[in-house]
């Protein structure tokens, strides 16, 4: 089932949580709402669920207005950051609960409930814990039970609010792969909220990046990562080095450095260039260099080597990531004088959000 969000406004007192947000979630896709805390992503999710009412705007489910449909009638499955399992019930009863409280006329029979619950518990690989209480489970197990519980009522939409936020790194990684493959099998329209860009990029079909109550960019993980639409998206998606230069006649220039831009900008002027650490090459030759400086730190972490160069022009540290081979080839030592050359640059006019990628 598709979800359409039209011009949603939501304020909490003086604080604007959502400012005229519109978005379409395609049927069967797994969409991530990504942004820093306070960006409005959870509020948007709760409005889709019906747990929060918008001040203005509409929510449409499969083309039908659901803005004023009560949460209990929306047929959404909701998974909470802190699981919200019913602590006074066993795992089995938790999962069965949405079915057993239905009015007699639409309630499945006892055997059918049992079968369905056990099937779901097998799906989340926890059928052996059916008689345990939530207090006896680990965080990862609780979240899987919460997911099984939300799926038991056969929702048309699955909504997940920072589902892995409270888990430790290892479990988080396992669970998000598992969620991805679960979604591949079930194809239920799903929206999940996260502040972890890695999680959003790895799990979802499309990512919505939000900040300060509005949407910054919508796109596939590749699009978002390779062609960030705004400085905010660029910076939020990972470490970047920042260079202040100019745009002149279709080139980004900084001192002697000039790089042609794929899309010619309308007007020249002050601009900022963002370069990711792995897009910054270190060399001992001055040719094509964007900046130069002295090697200040070298951190060899696993297969890659992080090198910090103190830029001579600005004095700010630049971060570059090299492969071990390249690092050995260069035979870098602390205090070496080196040049850095970008292989990929995102340029934005200073104070504007227009993007031209080269």
């Amino acid at each position, binding site marked *: 089932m598709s979800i359409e969000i039209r011009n949603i406004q939501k304020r909490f007192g003086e604080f604007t949580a959502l400012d005229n947000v519109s978005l379409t979630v395609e049927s069967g896709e797994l969409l991530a709402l990504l942004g820093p805390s306070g960006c409005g992503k959870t509020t948007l999710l709760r409005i889709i*669920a019906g*747990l929060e009412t918008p001040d203005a705007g509409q929510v449409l489910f499969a083309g039908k207005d659901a803005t004023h449909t*009560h*949460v*209990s*009638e*929306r*047929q*959404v*499955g*909701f998974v*909470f950051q*802190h*699981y*919200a*399992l*019913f*602590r*006074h*019930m*066993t795992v089995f009863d938790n999962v069965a*609960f*949405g079915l057993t*409280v*239905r009015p007699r006329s639409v309630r499945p029979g006892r055997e059918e409930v049992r079968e369905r619950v056990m099937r779901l518990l097998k799906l989340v690989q926890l059928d052996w814990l059916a008689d345990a*209480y*939530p*207090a*006896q489970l680990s965080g990862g197990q609780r979240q899987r039970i919460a997911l099984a*519980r*939300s799926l038991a*009522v056969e929702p048309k939409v699955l909504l997940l609010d920072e589902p892995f936020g409270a888990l430790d790194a290892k479990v988080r990684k396992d669970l998000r792969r598992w969620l991805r493959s679960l979604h591949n099998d079930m194809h239920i329209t799903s929206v999940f909220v996260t502040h972890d860009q890695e999680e959003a990029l790895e799990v979802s079909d499309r990512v919505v990046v939000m900040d300060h109550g509005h949407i910054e960019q919508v796109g596939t993980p590749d699009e978002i990562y390779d062609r960030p639409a705004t400085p905010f998206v660029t910076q939020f998606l990972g470490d970047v080095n920042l260079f202040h230069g100019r745009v002149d006649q279709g080139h980004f220039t900084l001192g002697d450095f000039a790089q042609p831009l794929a899309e010619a900008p309308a007007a020249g002027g002050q601009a900022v260039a963002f370069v990711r650490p792995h897009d910054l090459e270190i060399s001992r030759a001055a040719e094509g260099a964007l900046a130069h400086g002295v090697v200040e730190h070298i951190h060899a972490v696993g297969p890659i080597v992080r090198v910090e160069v103190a830029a001579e022009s600005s004095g700010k540290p630049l971060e570059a990531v090299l492969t071990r081979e390249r690092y050995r080839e260069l035979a870098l030592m602390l205090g070496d004088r080196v040049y850095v050359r970008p292989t990929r640059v995102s340029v934005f006019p200073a104070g504007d959000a227009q993007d031209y990628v080269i």
Partner: protein
Amino acid sequence: MDAWIDLFRTAWPVLLQGTLYTLMFAVISMVLGLALGFLVALVRVARVPALAQLAAFYVSAMRGTPLLVQIFVIYYGLPGIGIEFDPVTAGVLALTLNVGAYLSESMRGGIAGVDRGQWDAGLSLGLGWWQTMRFVVAPQALRLAVPSLSNSLISLIKDTSLVSVITVTELMLATKEVIAQTFQPLPLYLAAAAIYWVLSASFEQVQRRVEARLNLSYRR
């Protein structure tokens, strides 16, 4: 010592009678008070317009005035406007109204103490407000509220002594009557105190059982 044993031998039928009355007052007011308290808490939590304000007013009035005054108003005051109760009814009514106010606050606290996410989870599973309250929130609120509910209920057992002022021969008045005949206040008042204590202590046992039962699912 022998004198005391003789004294209790003659006094016990009267004291037992009084204890039974006390127990009856306590149990009936407990049951009614719990029901009333739950109702008042529900009205306030659901923010039912007008009723919620009325409930808040009732709680404030009951907690803000002495039980003794409430008993006098109900038994001696209300007949002035044509509402008359026999002493037992008036006693039960006063105790119920009084304890109901305290119990409603404990329950309201318990309900508020249940995580907001439990409501959201219930509602998103397709339950209505009342179903969520009944199956999800209330059972967990009860666990949180038991210690403070028990406080009020144990106080209630002792507060029954106040209905002696409207000629109900419960334990307190029964004791006084025996004292009037025997002129032995010390042993008899001590006996009454012991009986109240035993009643309260048995209630504490009940509380302990209930707590253990409600805590079953919280054990690791």
